[in-house]
């Protein structure tokens, strides 16, 4: 099987003051992602999930272990820009990742850095804005847009670089429910229609439920992995990681305790409703 992201026991500690004992943020993360997959990485604050995300984009380099992205070794300095052009990253705060005061110029920023020929740039911007449903906003100023719209512009900016992988580092954490729905809709589209490999870092179980596979991180290691249904059924492991299964799954298990067994374990509210109404 071809893995576009292959992490083997990577370790990382943030630099500290000289005399302080460096504390490992990642203590041996092993994780593999297949091409075209939609993967969610769940974890509590400080579980190392964001630190791991920054490794995929080589914003941080593993101090031990190996990480290959699209078949390229991240430890090799020469691969840096190739990897970054193949693996885009969307951050949490939309305000802090937009560079330009005009939407279209911001979307063009990435491809401009890649040295894409001038005559292709306009096409890339139009295409990327269409993919995130923001066509017609080309001339607008980002600060006049809603959080969800800003985040979609940020996604378009990454998309215009034509990456294979897009890493989302808690992209909905600062958005209102409407913006959250917009962004999730976009992520779904990018995975299903545009065929991008998605790594979604999140602490929202409802978002993780939409992924093909879920990894649970706690204290710098991957503690559990599997389909959302499998992972959400491991209640103890989730609790150890400081997480709670999504409401639908909780209801399922609470009902089970009371003696009412539904057909299959639901992971979304819709599935729960379907099960209950059956």
């Amino acid at each position, binding site marked *: 099987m071809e893995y576009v992201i292959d992490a083997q026991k990577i370790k990382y500690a943030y630099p500290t003051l000289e005399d302080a004992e460096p504390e490992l943020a990642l203590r041996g993360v092993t994780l593999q992602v297949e091409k075209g997959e939609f993967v969610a990485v769940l974890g509590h604050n400080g579980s190392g999930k964001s630190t791991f995300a*920054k490794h995929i*984009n080589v*914003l941080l380099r593993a101090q031990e272990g190996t990480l290959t992205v699209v078949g390229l070794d991240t430890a090799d300095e020469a691969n840096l*820009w190739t990897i*970054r*052009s193949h693996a*885009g*990253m969307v*951050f949490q*705060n939309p*305000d*802090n*990742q*937009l*560079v*330009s*005061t*005009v939407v*279209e*110029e911001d979307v*063009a*920023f*990435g*491809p*401009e*850095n*890649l*040295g*894409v*020929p*001038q005559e292709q*740039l*306009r096409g890339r*911007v139009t295409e990327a804005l269409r993919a995130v449903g923001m066509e017609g906003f080309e*001339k*607008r*100023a*980002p*600060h006049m847009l809603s959080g969800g719209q800003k985040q979609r512009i940020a996604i378009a*900016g*990454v998309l215009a*670089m034509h990456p294979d992988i897009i890493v989302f580092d808690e992209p909905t954490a600062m958005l209102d429910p409407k913006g959250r729905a917009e962004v999730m809709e976009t992520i779904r589209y990018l995975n299903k229609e545009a065929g991008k490999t998605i790594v979604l870092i999140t602490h929202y179980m409802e978002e993780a439920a939409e992924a093909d596979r879920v990894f649970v991180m706690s204290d710098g290691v991957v503690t559990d992995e599997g389909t959302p249904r499998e992972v959400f059924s491991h209640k103890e492991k989730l609790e150890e990681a400081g997480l709670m299964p999504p409401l639908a799954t909780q209801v399922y298990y609470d009902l089970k305790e009371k003696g009412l067994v539904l057909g299959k374990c639901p992971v979304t509210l819709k599935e729960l409703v379907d099960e209950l109404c059956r």
Partner: protein
Amino acid sequence: MLKNITLGQYFPGDTVIHRLDPRIKILVALLFLVAVFVVRTMWGFLALTVLFAVIIALAKLGPVTILRSIRPLLFIIIFTFILNILFYSGQTVYWQWGFLTISKEGIEKAVFIAIRLVLLIVATSLLTLTTSPMQLTDGLESLLSPLKKIKFPVHEMSMMMSIAMRFIPTLIEETDRIMKAQTARGAEFDSGNLLKKAKNMIPLLVPLFVGAFKRADELALAMESRCYHGDEGRTRMKVLRLKRMDVWALVLMIAASVLFMVFL
């Protein structure tokens, strides 16, 4: 109140003036600045005012927008106006008290300087209102690009400028938010004398700066992840190209300004 700062704020539009090459607009704005200083008669000011008014009309800006851009500097204008009236010693004295005199010449001088300041602001606002900050920095970068030969970091400078402009509205919003948060905790920003007021700013400025540094850090990371690595090998979606319109505009404005400067 904080959201209405228009200085350096682009007023989006799609008029002849908006479409002009930013380099031409920068050069013409500089020319206007020189003209405002060189012209020394009322007729000259009138001619410049008419010229600016035509440009404002062409750019569909509306008088309110222009007036709003003057407002932040109104204090300085009034201040210099009063200073000039009181301290300029002219021939025809109307009123005198110690070293303070009000004379005919002083009033004339004060009016002149006030008009001059207003025209200066209008001339620069014309540039910043009709040119997006990005275009502006692109234009500056292009105009200054000969300096690259002597290793002057032109690209880095323009990048810094455009980022600064990008974050002005964001930081204003944040200032607003912090002010409200601190007011809710009992901070006062409007009371007391100047010193007290300055002191009151500390609970506003500290979080603002901390926040700004955090933002800078995150932005740098985001830019790096989008493969930003300086000027080298970078292409541009919008390459500045002079059109016939730009050349005509430049020629026309040079002609008009020179005419005003020589004759008025």
